[in-house]
């Protein structure tokens, strides 16, 4: 029953409730889809065929129980700890490592009834924008397999884009959910910093990392975020207040929301097709109910440099634990110093080493004040500027990525070019603000382009409403998506 792949989360649950399909059948459809497309896309580091079917059977035996993610086949990024199941972060240094505990989000997904169908590829330790930094395999963009899916959550984005999972989880430190979402034509959401527990997320940059969902549409994304969000006693940085309802008010769309866009968009280097979509969106809004105001965006000039100092500094410290003593790779060495050097030398890829060294540099004695301390101050400045902006506006609209997907291998030569692709996404990480990428259109070469919304601190509800509004403007799925194996391109929702 290949048309089972068409259903959104609520669509599926309608089928379950009405006994029109079993969880097992749905799971099998997705596994079949994986069998068809995964050999070329390589989004997964592990596929849990047998266990997923077993879990599905168990869910069928109990019957539909109304849990928000009952029977939803999900993929999760391989930097999320899964008890007893290898969690590699796409690095050789954690090859075969099996955590003795689950990430909080994994527990919450399972508590909501989801079935985890596999663990997806990423740039090693979430450091990268193309998935080409994985130590195991390269993931390809389902829209054109010569192109990158984006990163670092490239595997999770590709899995959803290729209908190999109905939804997935990724992590976003400088854009690692939103950028691959944009490049793969799916919805990708990063909540307010602290909205989702990081317990069990292998840390890259502690003050920036956030876990978030990929989905086909905004509504699914909202349901997923609701299932994983909320205070966790294991993560002292989580927001203590209850997380907001995100799906009930979606229909309101842009109603009453004040939208802003960067008036100086012209000065940022971007693909003509991206600029075109951005301009047309603003025009559509002007003609519709939500005219957008031009503003100067905070943080644009400084965000990349600030991000790279703060993120790599924290990473250099977070990755110090990979030393061959307790788990993971250890080279055979005569002395302790050699063991550290050789293990880490062999276990880490180039990009990871580069960032560790940069992070070490900006923290080292003599440089701390000029780099790290300075970056912290700039961060505070960016926060304050955004706060000011959000007193007058509810949402900021801007592109997610300056370009659509680039060819595999194209960006590897110069790291700075790669870094600059994060220019539109890093401000939201630095300021801890919720942000989402919604698929907007296609470039002339047929690759997707997403548009981004940023909302004020804690304002995911407004963000989702705005995203829903954008979705209605773009009609992306109706226009461009042929669900694998189905007759038409329509999302036969509930």
């Amino acid at each position, binding site marked *: 029953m290949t048309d089972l792949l068409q259903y959104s989360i609520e669509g599926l649950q309608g089928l379950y409730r009405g006994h029109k399909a079993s969880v097992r059948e749905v799971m099998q459809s997705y596994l079949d889809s994986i069998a068809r497309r995964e050999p070329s896309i390589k989004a997964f580091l592990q596929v849990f065929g047998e266990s997923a079917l077993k879990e599905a059977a168990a869910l069928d035996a109990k019957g539909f129980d109304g849990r928000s993610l009952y029977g939803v086949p999900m993929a999760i990024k391989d930097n*999320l*700890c899964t008890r007893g199941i290898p*969690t590699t*972060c796409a690095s050789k240094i*954690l090859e075969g*490592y099996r*955590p*003795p*505990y689950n*990430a909080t989000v994994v527990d919450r997904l399972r508590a909501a009834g989801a079935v985890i169908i596999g663990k997806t590829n990423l740039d090693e330790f979430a450091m990268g924008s193309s998935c080409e930094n994985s130590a195991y395999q390269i993931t390809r963009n389902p829209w054109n397999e010569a192109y990158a899916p984006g990163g670092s959550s490239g595997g999770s984005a590709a899995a959803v884009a290729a209908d190999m999972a109905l939804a997935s989880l990724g992590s976003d430190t400088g854009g690692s959910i939103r950028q691959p979402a944009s490049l793969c034509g799916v919805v990708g959401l990063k909540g307010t910093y602290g909205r989702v527990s*990081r*317990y*069990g*997320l*292998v*840390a890259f*940059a*502690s*003050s920036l990392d956030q876990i978030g969902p990929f989905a086909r549409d905004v509504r699914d994304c909202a349901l997923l975020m609701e299932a994983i969000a909320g205070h966790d*006693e*294991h*993560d*002292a*940085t989580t927001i203590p207040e209850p997380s907001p309802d995100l799906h009930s008010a979606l229909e309101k769309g842009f109603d009453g929301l004040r939208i802003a866009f960067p008036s100086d968009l012209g000065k940022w280097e971007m693909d003509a097709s991206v600029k075109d979509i951005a301009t047309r969106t603003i025009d559509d809004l002007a003609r519709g109910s939500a005219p957008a105001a031009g503003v100067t965006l905070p943080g644009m000039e400084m965000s990349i440099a600030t991000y790279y100092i703060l993120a790599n*500094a*924290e990473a*250099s*410290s977070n990755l*110090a*634990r990979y*030393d061959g*003593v*307790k*788990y993971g790779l250890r080279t055979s060495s005569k002395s*302790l*110093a050699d063991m*550290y050097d050789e293990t880490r030398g062999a276990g880490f890829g180039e990009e990871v080493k580069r960032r560790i060294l940069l992070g*070490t540099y900006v*923290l*080292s*004695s003599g440089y*701390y004040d000029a780099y*790290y301390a300075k970056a912290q101050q700039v961060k505070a400045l960016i926060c304050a500027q955004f706060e000011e902006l959000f007193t007058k506006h509810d949402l900021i609209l801007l592109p997610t990525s300056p370009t659509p997907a680039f060819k595999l291998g194209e960006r590897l030569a110069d790291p700075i070019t790669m870094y600059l692709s994060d220019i539109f996404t890093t401000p939201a990480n630095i300021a801890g603000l919720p942000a989402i990428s919604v698929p907007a259109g296609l470039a002339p070469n047929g690759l997707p382009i997403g548009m981004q919304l940023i909302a004020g601190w804690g304002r995911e509800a407004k963000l989702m409403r705005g995203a829903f509004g954008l979705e209605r403007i773009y009609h992306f799925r109706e226009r461009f998506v042929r669900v694998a194996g189905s007759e038409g391109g329509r999302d036969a929702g509930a």
Partner: protein
Amino acid sequence: MPAPRFETVIGLEVHAQLVTKSKVFCSCPSIYGAEPNTMVCPVCLGLPGALPVLNREAVSMAILMGLATHCRIAPRGVFARKNYFYPDCPKNYQISMYDKPLCEEGFIEFELEGETRRISLERIHLEEDAGKLVHGGDGGSLVDFNRCGVPLIEIVSKPEICSPEEASKYLVTLRQLLRYLDICDGNMEEGSLRCDVNISLRKPGGALGTKTEIKNLNSFKAVEMGIRFEIERQAGILGSGGRIEQVTNLWDSAQKRLLTMRSKEYAHDYRYFPEPDLLPLDVGVEWIEQMEAKLPELPLEREKRFRDKLGLSAYDASVLCAEKVVADFFEEALKSGDDPKQVANWIMRDVMEKVNAGQIVFGRVNGTPLLRVISPTQPGAAEIIPPIEPGHFAGVVRVVANNTISSSAGREIFNAMVKSGGGPAEKYVESLGLKQESDSGALEKWVEEAIAASPDEVARYKAGKTQLLGFFVGQVMKKSAGKANPKLTGEIVKKKLEG
């Protein structure tokens, strides 16, 4: 030619393990001596993805120590990562505090050679302990992570200590304070109290010299010895015109010597930065007031009260106040209304003798101080044998003080309690038949018999050898099978012999 005289400048960094039930950043039990690698979880083991969550009780204890040492409690404390690679450090960084510690600018006072000395404190901060390294059989090392994450407070003094003796006294005072606050048991051998020393020499009035560090000092004696060795070593180098290198020395307790740490392995750039996984700690006025209310009477105040209100000597007061449980026991015993000096003497002499012999130990049940009886032949007997409560002990003091029994009989009762447990003294008086004879009629009869039986001694006494009084008293004690009240007997003998 005599070496030039130098001034010694010493600063101490003391690490005290807090006696919380759980570790500082996770809920693992904080237990000494457990089987290796059984008291760990993803957090204290530093597994990928694990995150620290701060133990409120550890902060309370740190605040208490800050208040007890007259520190300023910082309105905002910030945790920081101290980055260095070492096998006992699972994350290869330690969560500590750097430029925003919890407490600052306090002091510790003590008496040294008749003078009151005050040593200023730089700071007190909270941090996590590391694991333990032991030497493996094949030349490698073995790591046990149980101790990782146990809460420590680090107490840093200003470099105002001038001698090994002063350092030792400072440490003793610090330890006493920690124990009074019930936040640390101060056991240097087990490592719940650790001391690192920073030491430099300078010409009197001259600039500060280069300082070296001494680590791994595991007893008070080692602290004094290690400092002396290092002073000698530095003086030797400076005396012959050399320069002091900034090294870290390890105290080798087995061989009683100093070893230099290989400085290559220890590039001391810790690259401190604020811990992003923990929010800044804002200690509000309420919390501070809560902890102020919890401060017990501190040793110096208590000693003063013992001197001024109870009339004890400075020496007696300091002995009784050295351990809070002893002072508490003393004061509980006083509630029965006996003379403080008598009770103090009994404790310092008889009780302490038995404590030092390992027969009894001070302890508490539900907060009440008491003496637990240890039987060497019956392990666990401390549970079965009833403890000696302050009231029982006071009873012994009383029956001696009011002449119901002699003081040697009193000792006998106490010994009996130490063997078979505490109880009302009167019961023991009866069961041991120790009531002394104080009836003057009976006593006079025995005295007359003793005098009649020893005419030579009578003559020598009358000739001036008055110390023979004891002989006659002894004779009466024999006749009375020890029951005669020796004091009264002595008075009667004197009266009869001197007329």
